[in-house]
């Protein structure tokens, strides 16, 4: 048998949840970033899958969106990591539990 769209979607859902797990359960800021990146990758997988399985897959819309989202994810990662470094310089920690200056 060849995998159906369902299967691919479930895979991407699993990937997404893994990312969510990383983002939610870890204390280190970089883990959160990694999780977010993984979620983005899952989203891209969805795009590609929907494009591939859609009946009129001649127009490469999904692929385009995937490409653009990858580019944007790269930018986001760069800025995010820069933020992590800056925060580390300032507070000498990257533990997000201690970074609660915005506490109401």
């Amino acid at each position, binding site marked *: 048998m*060849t*995998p*159906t*769209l*369902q299967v*691919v979607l*479930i*895979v991407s*859902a*699993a*990937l*997404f*949840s*893994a*990312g*969510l*797990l*990383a983002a*939610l*359960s*870890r*204390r*280190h800021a*970089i*883990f959160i*970033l*990694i999780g977010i*990146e*993984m979620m983005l*990758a899952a989203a*891209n*997988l969805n795009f*590609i*899958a929907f494009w*591939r*399985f859609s009946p009129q*897959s001649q127009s*490469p819309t999904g*692929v*385009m969106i*995937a490409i*653009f989202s*990858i*580019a*944007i*994810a*790269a*930018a*986001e*990662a*760069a*800025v995010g*990591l*820069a*933020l992590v*470094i*800056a925060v*580390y310089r300032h507070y*000498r920690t990257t*533990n997000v539990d201690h970074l609660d200056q915005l506490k109401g």
Partner: protein
Amino acid sequence: MSSAAFVLITVLTLAAALAAATLQKLMHATLSFALTLVGVAALFFLLGAEFVGLVLVFVYIGAVAVLIVFTILLTRRDVGKDRGSNWGGAFLAVAVFGGLTWAILKTQSVAIVAPHIRALTVKRIGEALMTSYVWPLQCVGLLLTAALIGALVLVMEEKR
């Protein structure tokens, strides 16, 4: 699309993803994250989007992973001690996974196999990028430039 390869790659990817989410050593987590992305790229290959797969590897392994690694290095004093994980988040993630899976299985319209399409060549992608997607392309270029400058400014050593 050969299902064997698909299964293989899927297993690899998900295992790597879980590892990335749960490994104690940050460095190992990062490396398995890179592995995850390789797997995703392979999935893209299988789905007939070679170009995107290559771009993914290119961007994530070549750039993002290295960036993360650098960051880890620069914030090294803090890396070693990673206090465990909170189970609330884990539970939530699992719940989300369950909900998603349930929803996907529930929707019948996605239970379809891939139609046969002619391979998406890089040429076509390039043409599409340069014709109907040229405006978004410019915007992304601008965004990347802005991100570059912003990151530089953020990490610049404040002069003393």
